């Protein structure tokens, strides 16, 4: 059991809130400070993005933060250096999220070992194919105690969701719709039906809903149907403002309501 499993196992009636942000943005050194501030503000777990030059699943806000982070000098090597300090300052579960190419260049095995060494609990790499994970990388993820998180969209077939449920060891990341990041969730009859359909499947893994969750209303709707919800672009936008650090606690309070 890693920190993610414990969080979901012990959650009770709590609505779990996760925040995504990009490492090295707005400044190279802001990564761990933001993590600490978020934990103190009551966030339940974190997804720290490592930037890539060609983030095809992201909308303009996260594209911008990724470009800025790269300009600031962020890389996986720099990130793992920064995270050496992580577990002295932060107790909540932390996942790393990013695209597969930087991981391949760092080396998948080295990446998993570095994650374990700094106390990262899980990884979300949306463009790592399930097939490659199963055939080549699953054992090294598991040896290092890492949960590999898979995405599910409204178009994902039931058969594939079952397969994902079998392979998952942390939670399932349910996309509110098939979309790039940063589009506002409009809860329609279709999304309600989709969320209900997933719930009715009684998956073994907990479910967190992400993409397009920007405010209290969407957070509540999402967590009516799932164990947790994830906020990304709306928070990254805040990081672009002056004095963002002081505004974080209020932002989180408003989200949770």
């Amino acid at each position, binding site marked *: 059991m890693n920190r993610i499993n414990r969080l979901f196992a012990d959650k009770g009636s709590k609505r779990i809130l996760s925040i995504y942000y990009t490492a090295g943005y707005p400044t190279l050194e802001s990564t761990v400070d933001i993590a600490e501030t978020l934990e103190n503000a009551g966030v339940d777990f974190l997804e720290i993005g490592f930037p890539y030059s060609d983030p095809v699943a992201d909308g303009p806000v996260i594209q911008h933060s990724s470009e800025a982070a790269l300009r600031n000098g962020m890389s996986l090597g720099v990130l793992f250096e920064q995270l050496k300090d992580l577990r002295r300052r932060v107790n909540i579960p932390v996942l790393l999220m990013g695209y597969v190419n930087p991981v391949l*260049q760092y080396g998948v095995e080295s990446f998993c070992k570095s994650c374990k060494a700094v106390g990262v609990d899980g990884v979300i790499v949306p463009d790592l194919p399930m097939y490659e994970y199963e055939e080549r990388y699953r054992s090294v993820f598991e040896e290092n105690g890492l949960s590999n998180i898979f995405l599910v969209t409204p*178009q994902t077939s039931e058969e594939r969701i079952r397969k994902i449920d079998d392979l998952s060891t942390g939670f399932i990341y349910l996309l509110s719709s098939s979309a790039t990041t940063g589009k506002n969730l409009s809860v329609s009859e279709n999304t309600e039906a989709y969320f209900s359909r997933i719930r009715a499947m009684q998956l073994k893994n907990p479910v967190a809903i992400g993409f397009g969750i920007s405010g209290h209303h969407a957070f509540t709707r999402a967590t009516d149907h799932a164990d947790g919800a994830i906020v990304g672009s709306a928070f990254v936008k805040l990081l672009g403002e002056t004095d963002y650090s002081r505004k974080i606690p209020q932002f989180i309070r408003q989200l949770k309501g």
Partner: protein
Amino acid sequence: MSEYQVNEKGYYGHFGGAYIPEMLYPNVEELRQQYLAIIHSDDFRQEFDKLLRDYVGRPSPLYPAQRLSERYGTNIFLKREDLNHTGAHKINNTIGQILLAERLGKKRIIAETGAGQHGVATATVCALKGLKCVVYMGAIDIERQAPNVARMKMMGAEVIAAESGSKTLKDATNEALRDWINNPVDTHYIIGSVVGPHPYPDMVARFQSVISAETRKQLLEKTGRETPDHVIACVGGGSNAAGMFYHFLDDHDVKLVAVEAAGKGVDSGESAATTVLGREGVLHGSRSLLMQTDDGQVIEPYSISAGLDYPGVGPQHAWLYEKGRATYVNITDDEAMQAGLLLTRLEGIIPAIESAHALAQLEKMTFKGDENVVVCLSGRGDKDLDNYMKYFGF
């Protein structure tokens, strides 16, 4: 199954695959499950062949270039893809994909384009079929390639500027992929080269393979032999080369030469010679050779020809390179421009600057006298007149 073709898992050796986020999976999987059945169906074959003949103008001639042959002391044949409707090989692929999209019930087409050749070829087939067409093009390329932007618009396509990243071809491709993520049901993405997740590289190569299928027949008529001694083609993403090589891959006595753009020289920092400068990596959904930093960030390439200005090559090329089945060479801007002028003066044919890279390779080879050499003349130079004028100061 040839060792050079894609295997049932979607890989060429360890290259290829489908490195895509889940949002793209249903569309790509639908394509993977259906593309072979559709393109082998009688109904598809008949319409494809008919359009290639009556609309594109195929077969394209295999022209024995006499004065060029005299100059290099061997028999040089030009495969005239420049004579196709819209002026390049790109339309072979867009005809194939539009027929596929129709049969998949798609109502909306998206595409990326660099120089605008693939965008024009896509806008053309969308006009032909009355389908809605959206083309993503880097903001910088939109400025550089105004006539092609005008062509696309005249055909009714919407041209959207890619403002992200470096604002060129790779960013246009990113934007097209984002569009597909956000339109998961009714849209087909017509990729313009042998890149992208499986099954695209194989599918596009099959549509382009008409080039080598025709060449074999034409060579038999003209030389008494179906195979030449050398085949030369330029490589951006690699689609004209993939089509030109396709039916020669298992004839090991045919020497295959793939020409990349060296730009201002492979060591100049301004180059697109991927097999020299790239390492194994993942971009736009497949594992291949890729120009990138140590940290895995994609490096922006450079070539005077917008069509060769791509930081990767298709996975089949990475595999042919690694297996040594084809030789990968590179040609600088200057060498290509001179070769373009030479063909114009010797044969009265103005080649696309992309194709001029393949022609320039002739200068660097030595021939045994009566060898047969086929060069893929992938496109015509109309789109490049401005560049030629500026370069030579006409």
